[in-house]
């Protein structure tokens, strides 16, 4: 159950890591200044947010779910927090409310998937749309919400570099370590793998599958909130329009690329780290090559498509246990 599937000599993680190294090499030759310390730091910093989101997504996918509502819940919760801060509320009020909001979204996702039995991919997509609409209608008036001056010191804290390592990177690696240990050594972590591998068997064995599913979506919503916090502190604002962008697919890309199977139960946190590394390098390199945003989208989408094809070939869907209507 470790990251590599153990099928061949090289698992997907090793392959992706090798590709990342090659791409890194190619870019360092092709792109001037690619190897400069400033660029490398900004590269790992910008990709950390993606990586943290990927951790949340990885946990749901490992448990045979998926959470397409992450970006929506993140942006609405953070934007709401900023609105409250701008209205003069203290952080100790605004942050817990944002946390509560995220937990609520997670619980709704979990209940819809576990108890109402709506396919996860569908429930979370619809919840994403609904949460965005709810947020825009009731909580957040404008698209862009800035961090008020009074709280700028928070941003400065995130921008700090203890020992030369940016805080977002520390956060990402810290989260990855916690998630890795949790998945590997905690009982609930093992349960998530068991559910992803075979939900019916897990249920028969006595794993509280439904409760675990709810937990899984609450965790992913909270991780999304953390990623959102870091993202906001980096740019001192939150634009709710990222919901209609392709961020959530980048997150899936990071996860699937690293070798976490969409049918659940296979892969590990290391896969996310490796996937994040490759995508980070590529995004940075493409930006420095002056590719347009839309061209980057096409390239990313094609890579994701390729990753999906690879995933299907490496982890073929089992006709006997695949559920009818599993789309």
């Amino acid at each position, binding site marked *: 159950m470790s990251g590599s599937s153990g099928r061949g000599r090289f698992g997907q993680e090793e392959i992706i890591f090798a590709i990342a190294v090659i791409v890194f090499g190619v870019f360092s030759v092709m792109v001037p200044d690619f190897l400069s310390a400033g660029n490398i730091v900004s590269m790992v910093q910008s990709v950390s947010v993606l990586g943290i989101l990927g951790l949340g997504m990885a946990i749901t996918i490992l448990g045979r779910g998926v959470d397409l509502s992450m970006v929506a819940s993140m942006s609405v919760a953070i934007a709401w927090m900023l609105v409250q801060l701008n209205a003069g509320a203290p952080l100790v009020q605004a942050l817990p409310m944002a946390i509560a909001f995220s937990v609520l979204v997670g619980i709704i996702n979990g209940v819809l998937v576990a108890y*109402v039995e709506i396919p996860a991919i*569908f429930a979370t997509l619809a*919840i994403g*749309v609904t949460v965005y609409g709810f947020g825009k209608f009731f909580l957040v008036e404008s698209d862009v919400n800035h961090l008020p001056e009074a709280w700028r010191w928070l941003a400065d804290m995130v921008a700090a570099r203890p020992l030369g390592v940016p805080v977002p990177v520390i956060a990402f690696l810290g989260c990855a370590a916690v998630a890795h240990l949790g998945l590997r050594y905690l009982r609930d972590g093992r349960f998530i793998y068991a559910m992803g591998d075979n939900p019916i068997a897990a249920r028969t064995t006595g794993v509280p599958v439904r409760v675990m599913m709810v937990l899984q979506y609450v965790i992913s919503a909270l991780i999304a909130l953390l990623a959102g916090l870091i993202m906001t502190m980096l740019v001192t604002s939150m634009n709710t329009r990222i919901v209609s962008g392709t961020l959530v*697919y980048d997150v899936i890309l990071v996860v699937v690329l690293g070798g976490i199977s*969409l049918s659940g139960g296979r892969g590990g946190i290391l896969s996310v780290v490796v996937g994040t590394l490759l995508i980070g390098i590529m995004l940075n390199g493409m930006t420095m090559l002056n590719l347009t945003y839309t061209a980057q989208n*096409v390239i990313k989408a094609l890579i994701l498509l390729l990753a999906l*094809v690879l995933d*299907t070939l490496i982890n073929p869907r089992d*006709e006997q246990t695949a559920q009818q209507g599993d789309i």
Partner: protein
Amino acid sequence: MASDLFTRWRYKLVPDKIVGEILSKSWVDNAIPFLFLMIALAVFGALLPSMFTAGSMSGMTRTAGEYLLVALGLTIVIMAGGIDLSVGSVFALANLSMLALGGVVGLPWGVAALVVLAMGGLIGLVNGVLIGYLRLRAFLTTLVMLIIVRAVTDTLLLSYSKDITSVQIMSPVWEFLAFKTVFGVAPSFLVALALAALAHFVLTRLRPGWHILAVGGSRRAAHNAGIDVRRTVCLTYVISGALAAAAGIFYAARLASLGNDTGLGLEITILTAVVLGGTSLGGGRGSVFKTVLGVIIVVIITNSLIRLGLRSGASSLVLGTILLMAVAIDVRWLKNRAKLLARSYVAPTYFALPPLQKVSRAPDTPYAINDLLSDAEPIGVGQVDGPEDVILDAEGNLYCGSRDGDIIRFLAPDHKVREVYAHIGGSTLGLAFDRDGSLLVCVGGMGLYKVTRAREVIKLSDETTRSWLSIVDDSRMRLADDLDIAPDGRVFFSEATIRYEMHDWIIDALEGRGNGRIICYDPRDGSSRTVLSGRQFPNGICMVPDGQSFLFAETWGCRISRFYYDGPKRGRVEAVIPDLPGYPDNINLASDGNFWCGIIGMRAPAFDLAQKMPKFRKHMVMQIARDEWLYPNMNTGGVIKFDLSGKIVQSLWDGVGERHPQVTSIREHKGYLYLGGIFNNRIGRYKIPGADPEWTGPGAYWGAKP
């Protein structure tokens, strides 16, 4: 008692059974979206009085036409078990390419439209190959396609938008598509409706449509049945892509404008429409009609939200919520429908039986228990499975039905040799010989059949007149039970219940309602019509030799009555025995002019009481497992002989209960009584002391053969 009176009228006046019968109809799936439509119309009609003016309506049909085109494609994809999220981007790309090809490039609009359609189909083909042939996940694959096509569209938009908007397409047809209406309806809507009708025809009547539904219903089963699953799946995406492009063309005609939000989020809107209509995610269930309904609802809602001028986010919120609700209802409904139906279908009503007659070993009572049948000699032990009815021909050969769909014959004189006389394919429940020696058979679940002397099986009747107010289709015969033939050749046969299938026959007892009927088949013109309905499990039928009436037994009613089909009393029913202590089955003639009747089970006070408590039985059905329900006793019974005045002449029992604990059929033949039982593994032969040793059934009916 006053409370009994109240209960009786309450169940007489309120037809509880229609709830279950409506739920069992497939059109009930449309009820929820229809209700939704009514609510949407009422709410927005009240909020926006101007919405239902002719101008506004024809404006809505333009949007609805485009939506419906996209939704048709998505419906087909979903019915085959997939999903296509790329439609929004394909729509946008089609809009852009149409304006570019028709305007800047200067192709005639028809050619440009064809090229755009082909392009949509091509994108669909890519989806189809990836999902159908490479077996990728439909949801993510089409999502990626959504991003790619959107990115391509945006790129093109950046470079060429100025050029494109500067040139207009000039053509009268194009103008017509863009601005004109036909009787207030936009051309796009008419085209979409025509395509919807075509799609409906293909899906319900043609082989490719059946293949799509079969693949959606069960991929593996479809593959095993020889359907090319991969090609079918692929095809659905091609259709969807082409239809999304078609919608884009109409959009181009309508607005002739470019924008980077064209078709943004369209996939969610269309998905909401399709699912709201009642097409199930996961495939196999759905219809084009449902989608039309769903599209109309969604167009009304989105249109009204725009007019209400709410803040941005409102339409996302509303659509997302509706989508979730629709999916949740769909998932729960699909999962629980069968359970709900099984439980709500049983609709007990009030039924009070007359006081229970004493049945004991005391010798002076009419139903005194004895052990006479314990001595019946067995015939064909282990060679028959459930001989519900038995009959003998003039030569003395013994025929019986069997649960495995055969009519079995034991040859005269000693009935040791067994042969399959005819294979009929259903459970044989009633047998009678007609004048020329053909065997007429009532087959449960099939109807009335005839087996000629040459062993040819001919269907005589399997449907009768449909009653106008019945919700269940009562024209088909569910449980033809027993028959007899009048001297003029008309066949009267009973149908025990119109509400339950053969294997659920005993549940009919829990209802306490007259669900059965008696049907007359007239061989002169081959017609069947119902002569008597609303009877409680009519079972045995036996002609009275007066040529104008017959006796019939109502099993759950515990009574035997006489019905006049001819003569001065025509149409009347008279009670013969109103208060049997058990549940009567077949009735047949006895050699001394009386009648034999088999008793399949005995009444018990607990069940009799339950029949007076419909609420109790409803609770029972709703709350406990089917195996635990209180059923009538079907374990003990016997045979009675009675005369036309209803006097019990004799009763025969197997007190030990070893050979013939219950009897469903009896035939007298040359001084012997032959006994059949639906749960038995044999036929019994009992010597009747003092009976006419020359009397035979066919002889009594049709006279001695020359």
